[in-house]
């Protein structure tokens, strides 16, 4: 007999995984540093298939990393920087303790830092990869840029985030790539299509944050560190694709226009420049001055029949998109001071409108309220004292709904003081069987070019008819009651009732009519299906049951929503009636 004794957990899946603590020891890092490294390098734990085997027989809850991942981390130059930083902190503390102030200064000057460029390049080998993963970076940077410059995180980070987000917004405006916007209770969602990638981000409303205590800001700061690097490189590349100067510069023409105004009111040149950029009212300078971008038309390739249809669909889509890009072109907006300026200016500029605001609100307003050429003024207050006749006073939701509908919606529903129609999410794509709110149906009809006004009138007619019906029913009830009363009276008088037998109706399915046949056929089909289900294998049956359960749940939810809607409409109708009655 020969051979070595086989030992447990020395081969197989147990050797592919490593616990977090062991990984930490292998890398000689503290937990905080290990966490930071994992965030920067994008390493995440893995769930082994056989946890007990990997855990060497124990069932204690542990986090496992792939051993390959940890080996990969071993070669990371940043690990050395982490260690250097640790030493630096120790030296600094010592110098402080000894009150060697020159030493402290010297150490401060030589503070070890690191760059994340190579990590970004390694994590995202191609530009498209990076662009695909930018959603979180955008949301995070937008959040950090709204932080107050006190505590919580470095001021540099906040200013950098602000700078990058302004650059991004400017890019989106210039490339006109915004597609959808949504006002949620959390903030404003934007969706842009950049180089074929759909990018969604969330911007909080402009309020001071109530900083929670159970959030680890160090983790968030590490993420932001990585995201700002990534975001900067992406911005650079995006500006390059549009032949824009990076870091962004205002068009010389626009700059001179802006300069004429109250420059000295603003404190510093460097700060006011960012402000001017963030005003989004001026176009950016280009590396090569071009007149206007030519329309990039789709080339026609003569192909087979089925592709032709695809092509046509694509062409149509392209056309629609072009139309959407020019949605607000030629319109002149003025933002009142109570509406969120930045988001509205951003959206309106993305679709080609001209925007201005009160000059005390922000730098960069190009015309005054008194300008007669203004077509729309966006107002979010119940009433206005002084109104110009030749412009619409609308609530901000109109802009958002119009963008989502890809057309200028009728402004009547959004006038001052009117109750707004519900704001729907543009991200919901209903499959058949899902609940579609009636507003969406109306909108879809509008997009197809049908006129909903007539329908409404019809609705009114229906209502009236219904009312009449109800009245008739009431009358019927009344007569019935009378009959009953008569009968009771008779009974009281002791007369025998004339018993009458009315001939019963023959139900349609009992006779051999056409409906009967259809019904029978359906029943037969249903039974066949039931019998076939009996013959299913156990595994398939389980799957089938699960699918059917899911379907049933969705239908149940849909039914619930429809019922709720109906109840709500009934209630509102009743209210209307009451009001009418009161008026009369």
């Amino acid at each position, binding site marked *: 007999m020969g051979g070595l004794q086989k030992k447990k957990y020395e081969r197989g899946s147990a050797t592919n995984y490593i616990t977090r603590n062991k990984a930490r020891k292998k890398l000689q890092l503290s937990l905080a540093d290990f966490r930071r490294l994992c965030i920067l390098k994008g390493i995440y*734990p893995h769930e082994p298939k056989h946890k007990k085997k990997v855990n060497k027989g124990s069932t204690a809850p542990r986090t496992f990393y792939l051993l390959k991942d940890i080996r*990969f981390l071993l070669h990371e130059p940043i690990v050395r920087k982490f260690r250097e930083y640790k030493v630096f902190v120790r030296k600094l503390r010592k110098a402080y303790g000894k009150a060697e102030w020159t030493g402290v200064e010297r150490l401060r000057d030589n503070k070890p830092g690191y760059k994340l460029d190579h990590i970004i390049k*390694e994590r995202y080998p191609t530009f498209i990869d990076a662009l695909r993963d930018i*959603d979180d970076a955008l949301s995070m940077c937008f*959040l950090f840029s709204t932080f107050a410059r006190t505590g919580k995180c470095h001021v540099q980070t906040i200013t950098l985030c602000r700078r990058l987000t302004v650059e991004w917004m400017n890019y989106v405006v210039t490339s006109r790539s915004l597609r959808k916007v949504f006002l949620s209770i959390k903030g404003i969602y934007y969706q842009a299509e950049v180089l074929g990638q759909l990018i969604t981000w969330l911007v909080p409303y402009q309020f001071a944050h109530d900083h929670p205590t159970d959030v680890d800001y160090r983790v968030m700061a590490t993420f932001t560190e990585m995201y700002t690097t990534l975001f900067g490189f992406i911005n650079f590349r995006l500006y390059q694709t549009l032949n824009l100067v990076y870091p962004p510069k205002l068009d010389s023409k626009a700059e001179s226009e802006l300069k004429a105004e109250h420059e000295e009111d603003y404190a510093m040149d460097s700060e006011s420049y960012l402000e001017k950029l963030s005003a989004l009212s001026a176009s950016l300078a280009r590396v090569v001055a071009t007149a206007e971008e030519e329309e990039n038309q789709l080339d026609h390739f003569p192909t087979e029949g089925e592709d032709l249809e695809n092509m046509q669909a694509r062409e149509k889509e392209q056309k629609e998109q072009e139309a959407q890009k020019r949605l607000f072109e030629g319109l002149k907006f003025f933002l009142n001071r109570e509406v969120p300026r930045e988001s509205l200016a951003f959206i309106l500029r993305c679709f080609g409108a001209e925007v201005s605001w009160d000059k005390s609100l922000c730098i960069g307003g190009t015309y005054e309220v008194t300008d007669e050429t203004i077509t729309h003024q966006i107002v979010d207050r119940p009433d206005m004292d002084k109104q110009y006749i030749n412009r619409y006073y609308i609530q901000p939701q109109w802009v958002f709904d119009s963008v989502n509908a890809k057309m200028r919606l009728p402004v009547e529903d959004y006038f001052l003081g009117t109750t707004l129609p519900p*704001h729907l*999410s543009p991200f919901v794509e209903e499959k058949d069987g899902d609940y579609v709110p009636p*507003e969406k149906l109306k909108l879809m009809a509008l997009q197809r070019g049908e006129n909903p006004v007539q329908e409404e009138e019809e609705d009114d007619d229906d209502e009236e008819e219904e009312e009449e019906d109800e009245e008739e029913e009431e009358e019927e009830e009344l007569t019935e009651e009378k009959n009953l009363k008569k009968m009771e009276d008779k009974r009281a008088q002791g007369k025998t009732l004339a018993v009458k037998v009315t001939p019963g109706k023959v139900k349609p399915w009992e006779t051999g009519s056409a409906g009967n046949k259809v019904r029978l056929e359906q029943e037969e089909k249903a*039974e066949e299906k039931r019998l076939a289900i009996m013959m299913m294998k156990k595994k398939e049956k389980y799957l089938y049951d699960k699918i059917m359960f899911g379907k049933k749940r969705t239908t149940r939810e849909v039914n619930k929503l429809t019922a*709720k809607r109906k109840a709500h409409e009934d209630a509102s109708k009743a209210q209307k009636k009451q009001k009418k009655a009161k008026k009369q």
Partner: protein
Amino acid sequence: MKPRVSNLIGRQTPCPQVLLNKVIEHDIRNTVGNVPMEWYQDYPHIGYNLDGKKIFKPIRNKDELDEFLDKMENPDYWRTVHDKTTASDIRLTDEQVDLVHRLQKGQFGDVNFNEYEPSVDFFTNEVMIHPVTNRPQDKRSFIPSLIEKEKVSKLVHAIKMGWIKPRKPKETTPQYYDLWAKEDPNAILGRHKMHVPAPKMRLPGHEESYNPPPEYLLTEEERLVWEQQDAEDRKLPFLPQKHSCLRAVPAFSRFIHERFERCLDLYLCPRQRKMRVNVNPEDLIPKLPKPKDLQPFPTTMSLVYRGHTSLVRSISASPTGQWLVSGSDDFTVRFWEVNTGRCMKTLEVGGAVKSVAWNPNPAVCLVAVESTVLLLNPSLGDRLVVSSTDQLITSYEPPEEDKEQAVTWALSEGPEHNKGHRLTLTHPKAVKQVVWHGKGDYLSSVMPDNSSNLQVLIHQVSKRRTQNPFRKSKGLVQCVSFHPLRPYFFVATQRYVRIYNLIKQELTKKLMTNCKWISSMAIHPGGDNLICGSYDCRLAWFDLDLSTKPYKMLRHHKKALRGVAFHRNYPLFASGADDGSVIVCHGMVYNDLLQNPLIVPVKVLKGHQITHDLGVLDVTFHPTQPWVFSSGADATIRLFT
């Protein structure tokens, strides 16, 4: 420094002059110093005064009563302090009390001390005519230092040589460049192939809108439920709200939380690729031939045989198909005409009838009652058949030597004979089932009993002989059956079906049914297939040529199966269960060995009421027509045609 009051008085050191004078009058100061007074516990004295004389303790110590009396009577008690070093009580003077009060308030001990005196600077900021010191300056403060010069020249030299460079200004803003200028899509690390990109955040639905359609808002009850739920159980992580205008929308309080949770998800969550099954549920349903094409099979209930008053345990049809016999718990056996539903005969047998079986050959019917097996002549129909049956029974000639048998055979006579009883086989235990062999001469009875080997008996009617084929018990026997063509004998125990060769007297096969408890068994008339019903709602179809494991397992009943049956001519089999339904299936067996049997459920027949949780108890097919009989716990027998 804040000295404790007792110490102050004991030592009398920091007292002002006035106090001291008074104390000097009777100065009994202890000179032992600051030592624990416990050291003097065993001595009559407690130390020494200034002259070195012993200070004696007072003769009588004050006890608590004295203390109390003192407290009550002495008006100066509050200002009396006990001095441990001299063991005497000292009454504090007014000045001392004042001092104590002042110190307690944190004021200076000296009354006359002014803490707010104007400060007078010694050195002033103004240049005076006469300086404070008039020392002349050193010479070295006028001439340049050589050492410093040397150091500076060294530095200058180093700068000239380019050894010392000015500090680079720190780059505060990060520099960006075209990182992907030379992007090579093939240069993807192996690790990235395994990489699972993080899923994107879920996009918001209508309910997240600041002004959602009214149906998405929660009602009062739903809101209460939402508030009481744990954060993990909630379907929506937020409460939908409606705001009349954008101006009224407040900040979302959990915004930072949600972003932080996303961060945690990104670096702490294990990622896994999950394959989503995207199948059309219709595709999962097996494609079977239409039941319409598999006719004939029973489809409607056409007759109900009423008459029994208790549950009908067993039914059996005569080989001609004209008669039906049923045994019930109301101690009767009834004979029915199949076509009319008339009860032709009722026989009282004095015990619950567990099983009935019609002899496949002549008109002898067999009934198992409690612990007896009765052979009956129903005397129905053709007189020739009746007489031949009687002849068969009377033609028996007892053998010369009488052997000891497990059961006693007794010929019925008198009134019982007139009723139809012919032979009575008294068994030692309760009989559960009786079966005829296809020829009609042999019959087998089952007495389930786990402990003994006497569970199955085979009787030969013509010779009135009984055999016990098994020497050992292999478990609780549920039912037995004869092979329709060959000399095989099937015995079903709780979980297995054993097939014995009766000629060779050996076990040929053992079928694993995968059931917990077999209830019934039926054999295909071809003899190569077998179905087993079980109490755990399953029906197992065995192809004996194929394997000892079930070829097909059907779970079409909701409750325990009670009876299964094959049709003799048509490719049909039926099963009855406690859910009150009889399911008829098409079970085609092909002569071609390569083709597996085709099993298609064709009809669910309902009609029996469920009484005491029991539905259908037995099913049997009509011998020639595609009809099925079922007997149920609701005391009826039903015919489905």
